[in-house]
């Protein structure tokens, strides 16, 4: 069998997106939980726990975007204009929360502004991503590669729901991350937040799983036709088990288990999504092969992907190792303000 680079690239893209969703998911999640925490010292610790890593986490999103530009340019130039305003809102969200890291602890007397900017930016970014995701699943309205839906076509109840679902999901990841990275009162609070957001996520996931096949008949066929249904059964079953593990971990007050199980639930959710959409780069319009760039472009970048991504993973792991364990007063910002 000939090696199909397009499929390998699609796999690399999925891995990149998963890395992004998990890593930036928890640090956006910390921002999403921010409005619920009234203690300034606790907020310092929350921000301190992600300060050394958020920049690297966000880089996976840029990588995802650039892979689509380089490997699936026909899809890139079709998808982005169709979700112009939500993507722009997401970018503004990123900018606001990004500068809040720097400004919050360095301009005295303005913490009450920058903590809101940090929370607002994080929520805006997550919600916008959810809208883009929902619009992507629902399919765009394309005519001859020209987007005809108008600038507001993403305004749809389903997309708002996926937006809220993603906010809840990131909030859950953030809560589980803080359970792992904090101690005492803050950890107990994080656990309570994880439980609340976990409940929201379960409801949201169930609704999306029922709603998606209704929005898209082709997804309906893929999941609910024999014999495919049997092959795909492990996905919902494993998702159920991941949630079971999450609840056991949270109620038995374990440190690592809730985060790992929440990550597993996220991975399975995205695997389910990938199954639903395969092999489309733009759902129902353009397959990954139709969207692909020239073989020379794919070959040139594959060397970078195969040899440099492992190095990136190595030093990323090293950074997490350096900052392992619960965050303390010695870490993060807040000493020079």
């Amino acid at each position, binding site marked *: 069998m000939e090696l199909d680079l397009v499929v390998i690239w699609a796999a690399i893209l999925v891995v990149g997106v998963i890395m992004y969703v998990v890593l930036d998911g928890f640090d956006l999640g910390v921002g999403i939980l921010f409005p619920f925490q009234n203690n300034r010292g606790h907020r310092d610790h929350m921000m301190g726990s992600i*300060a*050394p890593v958020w*920049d*690297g986490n*966000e*880089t996976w*999103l*840029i*990588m995802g*975007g*650039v*892979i689509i*530009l*380089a490997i699936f*340019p*026909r899809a*890139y*130039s*079709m*998808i*982005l*204009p169709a979700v*112009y*305003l939500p*993507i*722009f809102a997401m*970018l*503004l969200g*990123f*900018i*606001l929360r*990004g*500068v809040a890291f*720097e*400004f919050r602890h*360095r*301009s005295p007397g303005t913490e009450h502004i920058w903590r809101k900017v940090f929370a607002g930016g994080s929520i805006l970014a997550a919600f916008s991503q959810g809208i883009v995701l929902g619009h992507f699943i629902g399919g765009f309205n394309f005519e001859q590669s020209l*987007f*005809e839906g*108008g*600038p507001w076509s993403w305004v749809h109840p389903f997309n708002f729901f996926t937006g809220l679902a993603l906010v809840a999901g990131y909030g859950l990841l953030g809560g589980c991350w803080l359970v792992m990275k904090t101690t005492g009162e803050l950890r107990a609070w994080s656990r309570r937040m994880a439980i609340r957001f976990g409940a929201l996520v379960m409801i949201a996931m169930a609704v999306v799983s029922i709603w998606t096949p209704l929005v898209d008949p082709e997804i309906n066929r893929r999941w609910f036709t024999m014999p495919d249904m049997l092959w795909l059964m492990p996905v919902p079953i494993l998702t159920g088990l991941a949630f079971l593990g999450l609840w056991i971990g949270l109620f038995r007050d374990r440190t690592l288990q809730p985060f790992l199980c929440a990550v597993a639930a996220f991975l399975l959710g995205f695997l389910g999504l990938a199954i639903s959409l395969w092999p489309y780069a733009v759902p129902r319009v353009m397959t990954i092969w139709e969207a692909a*760039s020239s073989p*020379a*472009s794919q070959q*040139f*970048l594959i060397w*970078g992907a195969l040899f*440099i*991504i492992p190095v*990136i993973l190595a*030093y*990323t792991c090293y*950074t997490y190792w*350096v*900052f392992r364990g619960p965050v303390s007063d*010695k*870490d*993060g910002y807040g*000493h*020079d303000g």
Partner: protein
Amino acid sequence: MELDALMLSRIQFGLTTAFHIMFPTMTIGTALFLAFLEGAWLKTGKEVYRRLYHYWVRLFALAFGIGVVSGVVLTFEFGLNWSGYSNFIGDVLGPLIGYEVLTAFFLEAGFIGIMLFGERRVGPKLHFFATCMVALGTTFSAFWILAANSWMQTPAGYEISAQGYAVPVDWMAVIFNPSFPYRLAHMVNASLVSSAFVIAAVSAWCVLKNVERETMMKSLKLALLMAAITAPLQAFLGDQHGLNTLEYQPIKIAAIEGHWETVSEAPLVLFAWPDMEEAKNYYEVSIPYLGSIILTHSLDGTLVGLDTVPAEDRPYVPLVFFAFRIMAGLGFLMIGMAFLGQWLRHKKRLDTSQWYLKLLILTGPAGIVATIAGWITTEAGRQPWVVYEVLRTKDAVTPSLDTSTVAISLVAVSVVYLIILLVFLKVGARMVAQGPQPAGGTV
């Protein structure tokens, strides 16, 4: 000028790039400066280097953070506003930007955490390594993005596919396209010059205000040394870049020079008001022969004028003409300041020459302003093309883009950037005024 989706997209892209480039311009040079300071501390053990490192790393962190988030916007704008462009260049420039992400963005982001927050958790040598990796990342980033930008100026190593977009044929020719080495050298050195003047201005302020005078004198001397080497070098690199542009983009040079007609014995136009409608200069002040001498190194060298192309293929001359003069004027001002600094130092009058220290504070932003002016010169000078003589800017814009949509995003991003810039200056000024923290202080 019609404010349609195309024009608003151009304004938005110009604004977001100009805002972004200020921060890498500061951080590329400052990262190398920080690597030098930490290396010097490790080698000599002198406390002054360590204190300076801790002082500058906090300001570096502030600029770095804004540079990162404002850069993300650009990656997505290619697709949002310029889908015709991203569809056309994706196969060729996508992989180049891909390598920028893989070799530069991840490297910077992976080690910035250890650099800023990891001093208590890793040994001094590992910490120095992290600083070097961040500095290396900023330089790699410049390499790839300049390769991509240069390809848009002097495209090479590609062909047009049957479907009508560019596909790579020879990657070495794509990356090392004719203008790339000149642009890379000119930009990397520009950020060294700009950083030197920002560092010199802040140091001069501290010396004047007696904030850690001894420590900041050291910082000032280092910055002025950096300026004395890089500012004259920039004039040489700029001249070389100009000769390269004359060879590949003569119309851009004609716009820079304000030459409407093709002439030998061309003058050097010092000042004029170029008029697009009349295709001539008003209020021209020029020096005979000097244009030919500078660009062709002979008295009667022929220079191509704007009249060799139809009016619709000319850039907007006044913008290119004035942006170039702002860049070059500031460049010569900085060379003068750098030499003056070395002379005062030689006479041992640097710390007592208050007038010079005050002038240094004023010229602090000179490098950054010159860099932006230089980018306006080269990007506006390439118009009406986005990929020179291959793809027109009007064909690059997203065809379905609605004017009101771009208006919303343009207003939103302008407001947010303005606020960020003001807060950055306020917070930065406060950190400057605090001076270096006492020994043993935290980052």
